[in-house]
């Protein structure tokens, strides 16, 4: 809301939003101090789904931690797989065959589209539009079927291996992926944009709502579509390239408005860019093995290792400390949603409850990834 409001700090009540609330998507709790329908103060409370994943990593071997990675961000699980594989490969000096790198990129980007589709559906649900959910899930289902075909799972993948991937892709997967891209490209302008993006009610709900400045993004360490919606062109895939991303021609969508609409548009454009990457990867897909040479028991040399990947929500960093043993000595993740959520308290101040929830939806929160 653009009209400045005078908040009365003495006549307030506390509204508990969550951990069981339809808008908080999981177990986020926000303690809201309200003046009528205006938010005076918003404090996100975390820890309701904390499972000690980082500590669990110390107890097992490197390979044993791979399934855990998918349980953190269950919407873009393959990127978390990828991040863990990258940091361990860096530590142990394992080479990955080119075909495996391409397959990684293809599956991760497919998963990114699925994640954005689910975000889109949930965001519209937050705004009270129920129908788009079903259409987005229709498209997402196609991706999940494709990924199930190669990875064996539908949501929490454990597909990457140190030195490659678990399973090769076949012609049917390639044909199915091409069909899917054709289908989504066909549906995107009419179904997603004409019916939803250009809807006057939606535009009024999210335009100029939840403004985040570039300075705030830098202060809180926000990354991903949140930062790119505030005019910061930062994407790990371009800025600190990993895997075979430099070989593809794709753009980083950046919108400078900083409002919820800008973040919405960034994600909508990212889906198109992901489709471009997948198409190029399928065209250039080299032959060869999908699994390189990797020792049975990994014993990386003692030291500190860091690598970062771009997930659907922002940059994910793995900081791995090894002491030459077959277990990680220490693992610390830098997950994007934590920083993005930290913004919420500052930005939501003075907002109306309904606007604040629309703003929260535009941040694309995945709580298990914060509470690891």
């Amino acid at each position, binding site marked *: 809301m653009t009209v400045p409001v005078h908040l009365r700090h003495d006549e307030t009540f506390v509204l508990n939003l969550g951990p069981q609330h339809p808008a908080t998507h999981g177990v986020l709790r926000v303690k809201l101090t309200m003046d009528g329908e205006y938010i005076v103060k918003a404090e996100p409370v975390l820890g309701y789904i904390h499972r000690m994943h980082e500590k669990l990593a110390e107890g097992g071997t490197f390979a044993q931690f791979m399934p855990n990675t998918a349980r953190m961000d269950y919407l873009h699980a393959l990127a978390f797989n990828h991040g863990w594989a990258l940091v361990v490969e860096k530590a142990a000096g394992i080479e990955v065959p080119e075909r495996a790198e391409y397959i990684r990129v293809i599956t991760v980007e497919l998963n990114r589209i699925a994640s954005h589709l689910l975000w889109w559906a949930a965001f519209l649900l937050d705004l009270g539009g129920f129908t788009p959910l079903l259409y987005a899930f229709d498209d997402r289902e196609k991706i999940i079927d494709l990924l199930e075909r190669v990875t064996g799972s539908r949501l929490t993948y454990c597909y990457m291996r140190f030195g490659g991937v678990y399973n090769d892709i076949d012609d049917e997967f390639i044909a199915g992926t091409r069909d899917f891209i054709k289908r989504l490209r066909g549906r995107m302008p009419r179904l997603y944009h004409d019916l939803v993006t250009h*809807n006057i009610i939606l535009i009024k709900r999210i335009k100029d709502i939840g403004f985040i400045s570039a300075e705030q993004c830098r202060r809180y360490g926000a990354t991903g579509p949140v930062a790119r919606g505030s005019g910061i062109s930062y994407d790990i895939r371009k800025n600190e390239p990993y895997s075979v991303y430099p070989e593809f021609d794709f753009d980083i969508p950046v919108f400078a408005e900083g409002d919820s609409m800008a973040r919405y548009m960034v994600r909508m454009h990212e889906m198109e860019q992901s489709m471009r990457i997948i198409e190029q990867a399928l065209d250039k897909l080299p032959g060869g093995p999908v699994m390189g040479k990797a020792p049975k028991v990994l014993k990386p040399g003692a030291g500190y290792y860091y690598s970062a990947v771009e997930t659907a929500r922002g940059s994910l960093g793995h900081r791995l400390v090894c002491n030459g043993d077959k277990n990680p000595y220490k693992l610390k993740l830098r997950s994007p949603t934590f920083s993005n959520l930290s913004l919420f308290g500052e930005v939501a101040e003075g907002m109306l409850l309904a606007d604040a929830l629309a703003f929260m939806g535009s941040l694309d929160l995945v709580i298990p990834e914060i509470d690891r």
Partner: protein
Amino acid sequence: MWHALFYLVGIMAFAGVNAAWLGWCERKGAARIQRRIGPCEAGYAGLLQPLADGLKLMSKQLLVPQGVDGIIFRVAPVLAMIPAITSMAVIPFSENIGARAMELSVLLLFALASIGMIAILLGGWASGNKYAIISAARSVSQNLAYEIPMLLTVITVVLISGSMNLREIALDQQGGFWHWNIFRLENGHFLTMWVSFIIFFICSVAETNRAPFDMAEAESELVAGFMTEYGSMGFGLFMMGEYLNIVVGACLTATLFLGGWDCPFGLTPGIWWFLLKIYVLIFTFIWIRWTYPRTQIYRLLNLSWKILIPFSLANLLVTAALIKVF
């Protein structure tokens, strides 16, 4: 005596069937809009689903949480149903079917609609739940804002017909669709009644708390709004009250603007035309709900106070002038 009893039973049956099976219609309609099948297990095409739901709701305990104003908490759902059923008494279903043709039936309908709003307010207030109270407050400000343009547009109809009796208003529109208030010609001159119709329709969507104006039960913000603490048949009665309000709104729209039981093409007029009109209107309600996202409470109020009220005032002036001139 028998006449009254016949109408009592008839209206109760009409209300009951609509309250139950409009829920089915809504679910089926939503399912088709969303490329789903919808209810299909209970009976043919899920037609027995409302019975199953009703039995389930009735077999559940009406839980009255601690700190709740017990009496008002129990009365509110009933209060949501009663005005909607009572409204049916003055609705003319056809020339000869109508329980009571009162002189001020239009006024009575609006008075009853306000009682429905009080039911929401009481239910929300008695629940002692913050979400419910916010929802009740929203609902009141929304209903207040939308009753004004609604009444202003009804005045244009009353000006044309010269009566506040719904039966008289419908009788005045007989003889094909160019006699209907929405396309009204006065001595061969076109009146601006379609503006009234649009304003009235928007207002009736808002009055019945339906999406995109369902701020009172915005589930992503207020969980279930004023119904948060209600389970069992308390919830059921609120839901049925909502559907009955839609039926009343559709009946009122059909009578005021669409010629009541009149046939557009000069065929035999009758109750079937009236039912056809109200179900087309109800389908539009469902269609709108499952197409648009929810708007915001202040935008809703802005729409009413800054757009609809000035427009309906201007429309009232123009209509009055046109009637005077022609």
